[in-house]
């Protein structure tokens, strides 16, 4: 039916039309302190249609997949685009791309849909037990979710893509308590693929590790505040790259003059040690996709190379406006929303065997600073160029040595200042835990980097 629909669209005199027909199935479980809080198997399907007419977009969607509803959705999208085209001042145009026909059906070694809810429940129960072995752990909420998504993309330029991917995630939120001190901590394992992922990214092992650290952090003291040197672990470095650079190179912010990186391609904006990529092609990573939601092959994008700004993350519309090559950066959370410009796996590369530093070398000449690990997330304002993010675990560095644990360390700074303050990188990068990025829509992302030293960053602590 979708072929009939795209054929109908091309007869309706529109400049461009694409459709996404998604079918998904998955499950969602939660166990709190040994008891099942929820176990939700679910299934859904729907169609989203996007139409471009004389420089204006119209979009509509439905989860009723009978022909009449599908046709009505197309007609609505056409009518919306036509009426919007009467008032559009800055006409949308799309950069040209080759049409593609392909089928990417990623069959995981162990399809989570073939695994019973009981087995998944058992996994959470095991995580729960091993975490609650620590008497200081007051509460554990473990969660599991998986999904298989089959997406069919068609457009009026002849692109025809069928993509099927699977993901699984297991996570735990812990609350540790000692006297009147309460502390929250979390971990997440998983990626794009099937149940086999847990063999290498073991949620039970990770859960126990999280419990150990949470217990340790109960004795943490409030962190000092002010401008201090910082060493970040790969996970926190990943969040730094995501928040501080990733969002500012999303081209939608560039074309609306909402990013301080507008007009700076070719300019040196970071220390020359810094090379940052966004790469959706890393198999198994949480930010993996083979084609973006405009039907463009996914590709590794070098955003900053040796300190020089090289590229933005683009969709077809912004690529046209900026006169750049489209690079497949459009992603939609689901069929019922339009694709937005999004990151995938954002990574700062290690400095390599020659120039990279060992952890000890990174901290050895810091007299008074912070070593921070993991994260509770962050946020950025690309217009003002400032960012904030939070470490989940932190320690004081005194005279070149990691000493006492610190609680609630939060970091903040200006993108352009901080990029030039990076004065030491480890040899290799590692990917952090799977993450979700919210920008009106939630999409899975990965990020990572090497151990990283920042000469000076604003630390907000409670001391």
């Amino acid at each position: 039916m979708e072929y009939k629909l795209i054929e109908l669209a091309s007869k309706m005199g529109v400049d461009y039309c694409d459709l996404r027909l998604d079918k998904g199935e998955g499950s969602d479980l939660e166990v709190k302190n040994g008891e099942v809080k929820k176990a939700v198997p679910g299934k859904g399907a729907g169609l989203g249609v996007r139409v471009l007419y004389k420089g204006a977009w119209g979009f509509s969607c439905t989860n009723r997949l009978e022909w009449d509803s599908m046709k009505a959705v197309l007609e609505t999208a056409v009518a919306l685009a036509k009426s919007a085209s009467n008032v559009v001042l800055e006409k949308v145009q799309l950069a040209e791309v080759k049409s593609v026909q392909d089928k990417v059906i990623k069959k995981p070694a162990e399809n989570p849909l073939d695994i019973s809810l009981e087995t998944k429940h058992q996994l959470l129960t095991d995580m729960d037990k091993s975490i609650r072995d620590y008497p200081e752990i007051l509460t554990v909420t473990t969660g599991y979710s998986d999904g298989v998504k089959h997406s069919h993309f068609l457009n009026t330029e002849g692109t025809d893509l069928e993509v099927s991917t699977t993901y699984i995630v297991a996570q735990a939120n812990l609350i540790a308590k000692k006297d009147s001190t309460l502390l929250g901590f979390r971990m997440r394992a998983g990626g794009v693929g099937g149940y086999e992922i847990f063999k290498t990214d073991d949620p039970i092992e990770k859960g126990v590790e999280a419990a150990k650290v949470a217990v340790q952090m109960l004795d943490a003291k409030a962190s000092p505040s002010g401008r201090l040197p910082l060493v970040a672990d790969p996970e926190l470095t990943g969040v730094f790259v995501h928040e501080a650079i990733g969002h500012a190179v999303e081209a939608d912010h560039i074309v609306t003059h909402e990013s301080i990186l507008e007009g700076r391609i070719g300019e040196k904006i970071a220390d020359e040690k810094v090379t940052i990529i966004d790469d959706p092609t890393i198999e198994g990573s949480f930010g993996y996709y083979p084609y973006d939601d405009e039907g463009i092959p996914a590709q590794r994008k070098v955003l900053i190379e040796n300190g020089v700004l090289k590229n933005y993350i683009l969709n077809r519309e912004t690529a046209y406006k900026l006169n750049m090559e489209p690079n497949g950066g459009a992603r939609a959370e689901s069929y019922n929303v339009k694709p937005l410009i999004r990151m995938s796996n954002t990574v700062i590369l290690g400095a390599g065997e020659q120039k990279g530093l060992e952890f000890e070398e990174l901290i050895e000449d810091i007299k008074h600073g912070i070593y921070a690990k993991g994260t509770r997330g962050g946020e950025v304002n690309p217009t003002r160029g400032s960012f904030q993010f939070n470490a989940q675990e932190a320690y004081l560095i005194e005279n070149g040595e990691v000493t006492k644990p610190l609680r609630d360390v939060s970091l903040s700074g200006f993108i352009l200042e901080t990029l030039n303050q990076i004065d030491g990188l480890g040899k290799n990068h590692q990917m952090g835990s799977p993450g979700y990025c919210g920008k009106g829509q939630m999409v899975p992302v990965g990020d990572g980097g090497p151990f990283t030293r920042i000469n000076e960053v604003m630390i907000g602590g409670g001391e």
Partner: protein
Amino acid sequence: MGELDDELNVLLERGRKAVKLAVKLGADEADVYLISDIATSIEIENGSVNFSEKSTDNGIGLRVLKDGHVGFSYCTAEQELESTLKKALTVAKFSKKIEFNLPTPESAGKIPKIDKLFDKRILDLEAQAGLDMSKVLLQSAEEVHEDINISGGGIGFGYDITALVNSAGLEAGYYGTGIGASLSTVIQEDEDDVAGQGFEAFGSNMHEIDLNKIGRTAAELAVKSLKPVSIEGGELTVVFHPFSFSSLLEFTVIPSIYGEPVHKGESVYSDKKDQMVSAENVSLYDDPTVPGGIGSAPIDDEGLSSRRTVLIESGVLKNFLYDIATAAEFGQEPTGSGIRAERWDTSSDYHALPDTVARSIYLETKTTNFDDLIADISDGIFVYSIMGAHTANMVSGDFSVNSPTLFQIKNGELGKPCKPVMLSGNMPELMHSITGMADDFRMVDGDFHPTVINLGSVRVEKVKVTT
């Protein structure tokens, strides 16, 4: 009224059928939650409309009880009802045993009639009306300054219908309309300086929004925030705009008053009932019955009547919030706080089981106009927006956030814009330092939860500011 009654009846009929089928398939009890909504939106980018959308959503959430165990699943198509119910019954086999009963028409309480949740004028709006409205929005911002760039924003309107049917004989449903507009603006005067930035948003159930005011406010804020100055950190008196204070409440104080964490000793409020937990003239309510409230509705997502719950009264912690299951578990009365929303979701949906969620929080304290609120502040800041509230430690209430848009308060008056600062502290403790609120009252949607927070600008003493 009347326009949507037919559609509501269709949902109720579908719900009755599903409940019957659930019982036939072996459920002891069942409740069926159905929603149907239509939304139209017009998006603005770079001073021009360029995208318009009309979307519909409908689905069914099916909860079954079997031997005291709960099962749940959902679907969108009616033909999948039977297989979905079977899945829900399978799940019930290993899920937690809960001692509770679904509400009957009597135990659900008298459903309040709430005015101003529905406006036929919104129902009749076509996309063209949205296009016309966006012109007004754009013009009003452009008139403020010739260099203003309207980076984004738009208009959205629509309606939603909710129905709930259970095997205890309860049948309830309602519909409401909504309209909202937002605008973001940027202005760059000097290449070397940071851009000025403005934002404004407003939502209503009634077709009563002042587009001119939204456009003008967004543009004026951008102009005002140009050429920020550096300030000294320290412990300062901070006046939080409703946008920023509501975010801090959302991720700290509010989830700490939910029954489950409180009774399990996981909340800072666990042993604080009847004790002072804020300044003595501060009160906090959950009240989804207020006419015209964007967080108001006659029932919760389990079919219980909406009611006002006093959480903090004159500084004293009075009550906590409960859905049906947690109320039963801890021997309390439910507060009509059972809401079905997935993590990060800001509205109810059929994918999720009910859980305790604050619905429409009101903060009250000594209130004056804004000028009087700041009149005796010799050296402080007015924090318009913050980033990173979601990274606060939800358990302890400790936070450390960045404010990108803020202004000096000097000798009792609003002064120059400031460069970003960090604010940190502990929210439950800062509740004791609230010294007043301005009458610039707003209904603010939650960032990541279906909770509306109603408040004015809040003055707090001795907040730690790092620069």
